[in-house]
C-alpha cells in the first residue's frame, strides 16, 4: 500500500474541514465540501491497490486466469462516490444562487435568520 496516497488524502481531508469551518463565503464552503470528496475518493481507491497487479479487464488480453490484479470493488465505490459528489455540488451551488437572490449577500455570518 502506498504511503504517499494516504498522507495526501488525510491532508486533503484536513484542508477540507478547515475550509468548511472557517471560511465565511458560502461558495468557499461548497469548495470545501468538494475538497473533502477528493480526499475521500483518494482513500477509497488506494485501499484497493495491490503491488504489481494489473488492470482487471478481460478483453485487452492482458489478464489470463491465475494472474494478479488490483481489486475492482473500490473502483466501483469511487465511481459512485464521484457521482454523488457531483450531485451534492450541483444542489449546493443552486442553493447558493437562490440564497444570493433572497439575502443579497454571500456571507454566512449574515445569513442567520433562523437562530436561537
Amino acid at each position, binding site marked *: 500500500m502506498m504511503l504517499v496516497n494516504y498522507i495526501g488524502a488525510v491532508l486533503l481531508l484536513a484542508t477540507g*474541514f478547515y475550509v*468548511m*469551518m*472557517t*471560511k*465565511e463565503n*458560502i461558495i468557499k*464552503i461548497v469548495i470545501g*465540501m468538494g475538497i*473533502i*470528496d477528493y480526499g*475521500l475518493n483518494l*482513500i*477509497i481507491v488506494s*485501499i484497493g491497490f495491490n503491488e504489481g497487479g494489473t488492470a482487471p479487464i478481460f478483453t485487452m488480453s492482458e489478464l489470463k486466469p491465475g494472474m494478479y490484479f488490483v*481489486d475492482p*470493488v*473500490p473502483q466501483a*465505490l469511487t465511481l*459512485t*462516490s464521484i457521482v*454523488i459528489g457531483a*450531485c*451534492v455540488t450541483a*444542489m*449546493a451551488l443552486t*442553493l*447558493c444562487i*437562490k*440564497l444570493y437572490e*433572497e*439575502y443579497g449577500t454571500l456571507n*454566512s*455570518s449574515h*445569513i*442567520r*435568520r*433562523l*437562530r*436561537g
Partner: protein
Amino acid sequence: MIQHFPILSIMVLFLGAFLVVLVGRSRIARTAVVSAAVLTSFALMVALIKPVMIDGQIISYWMGNWAPVSGYAIGIGIEVDALSLFFGLLVSLAVMLSGFYSFKYITQDDSPDLFFTLYLMLAGGVMGIVLSGDLFNIFVMLEVMTFAAVALTAFRSWNPNAREAAFKYLVVGSLGSTFVLLGTALVYGQCHTLNLAQISGLLSVNGINPTMTFAFALLFTGFGVKAFMTPFHPIAADAHAAAPSSVSVLISGVFTKTGVYGIIRVSYFLFKSMGMSSMQTGLVFIGCVSMFVCVTMALNQHDFKRLLAFHSISQIGYILTSLGLCSAIGIAGGLYHAINHTLFKGLLFLTAGAVLYATGTTKLEKLGGLARRMPQTAALFMVGAFSISGIPPFNGFVSKWMIYQAAYEKAAETGSIGYAFVTVIAVVTSVLTLASFVKVGQSVFFGELPVELENVKETPLSMRIPMWIMAALCLLTGVLPGLMQQYIINPAVRATLDYKGYIDAMMGEGYAAAHLADTVPLAEAKYTFAGAWNPAFWLVLFVIVLLGVTVAMMIGKSGRGAATAIADDKHDTFFGGEKNTFSQVGGGDLFWGFKYNFRRYLNVMGNAHSGVVNDYVTWGVIDLALIIVYCFIFM
C-alpha cells in the same frame, strides 16, 4: 414468492416516483399513481409479518442470484429479520398516512408533481436503508434520502427561510455522509467484503485494531448525524420548520429512525460493542444530553413547528438512552418508543400543518383560540399532547414506563449512582415536555381568538382522516400493550440480541460458529414488567375525569371574561400586588417566571444556536474528535 417482497416494496416506490414525472400534469393520474405505490408498499410489508415476526424466519435474498462462493460474499444482499421488518412497517405506515394527507395539503403550493416525485424518492430511499444487508447499499440509499429531504425542505418558494434551512441541512448532512463513507472504506480495507453478515462474523471485539476503532467511531457519528444527536440538532429545528408539514412528519418520524437503526446495526451487530460498559455509558450520556438540552431550548421558541422539532429530538434522546442501556427491557422500551414517537409526533406535525393551512401562520403570538373554529383539530392536538407527555391511557405512558424501569433496574444491577440520575433526568424531561405542551395548547387552541382569524374553517375531510387514523393508533397502542409486545416488539428484541442467527441466515449454517472466535454476551432476551397496572382501568378513570372537568368548565363559564382574569393571576402569584398597566401575559408566554429565573442558562443556549453554518460544522467536527478519543481510550 415471499422472498421477492422486500425488494418489490422498495422498487414500487421508485417506479412510482418516475411515473409521476411522466404523468404528473393531470391530477387524477398523479393521485392514482401515488396511492397505488404507497398502498402496495405497505401491503407487502404487512404480508411479511406472519413469516418473519410470528414464525421467526429470516429472509435472505441475493440480488442476481450471486450466492457466496467458498465462504466469501460476492453479491449484494437483502436481509429482513424482525428488527428490519419492525422499522419497515413503521416507515411504510408513516409514508402512507402522510401521503394521503398531502393530496389536499399541497394545493397551496405550486408544482405538486415535483413534490410527489421527491416524496416517493425519499420513501424509497428510507425503505432501502432499513431492508438492506449491504453496507455500501446503505450509504447510497442514505444519500438518496438526504437529497430528497433537502430538496423538499427548500420546496416552498413563499417561505423566506426555506433556502437557508436547506443549505444548512445540506452542509451538515453531507458531513454525516462523509463520515459514513470513510468508515465503510476502512471496514472494507480490513474485511474485504461489504456484506453486513460477513463483516459481523469476521470482526471481533477483543482483537480489535486501531483502524477498526477509528471506523467504529466514524460510523457511529455518521449515523448519529442522521439521527440528529446533540451537537447536530440545530439543523433539524431549521429543517422541520421550513419543510411542508407532511414532509416534517417524514423527517421527524422516519428519517431519524434510520439513524437509530444504523446505530443499532453498527453497535449491536457489526462491532458487537454494546456489551462493554464504557460504550453503554457513552451512548446513555449522549442520549441524556440530547433529551435535556432540547427540551429546555423548546421553552424559548416562538414558532409552533420549531418547538415541535425540538421536542422531536428530545424524544430521540429517550430512544438513544434506552438503547444504550443494553438490557432486554431497555431495547424493548426504545423500540416501543420509536413506534410511538412516529405516531404521536406525526399527529402533532399534521395538526400544525392543518393550522398553517387554515390560518397561514405558525407564530405563537399571532394564533389563539382556534378551538372554537377547528374543534376536531384541537381534539387531535390534545391526543398528541397527552401522548407525548406520557399520560395514560395513551401510548407514551407505556414506553416511558419501560424506559424508567430499564434505567432503574440498571442502576440497581450495577450499583452506580449515574443510572439513577438518568431516571431522574428522564422524568424531569417528561414534566418539562408536559409544561411546554400546556403552553402551546393555551396559545394556539384556547384563549382569545384574534380578529384577523375570525373566518378560519375546519380542516378538509381528506386531511382529517389520516389524522384520525393516527390518533386511533395512538390510543390502541396505549391500551393494548400486551398484544403489541407479543407480536411486534418481542420478536424485534430477540432479533437484536441474536446476531448469530443473522449471520447464519445469510452465509449458510455453521458460519458463525466457525468464524467468531470469541463472543461478547449482550443480554438475556427476557423481561417482566414491574408493578401491576391495567390500562383499561386508566381509560375508565380518564374518561370520568374528562367528563368531570367538562362539566365544571361549562358551569363556571358564564362569569369569566377574556381579559380580566389573566392579569390578576400574574400579580397574585409573582408580584406583591401592585397594578401595572402593561403586564398582560399572552398565551404564548405562560412560563415567563420560569424563563426569567433561568435566563442566564437560556441566553447561553440561545447564543450557542447561533445560526451560522460554520459554527454547526465546528460543533460537528469537535464532537467527532471527542468520540474518536473516547473510543480509543475505552475500546
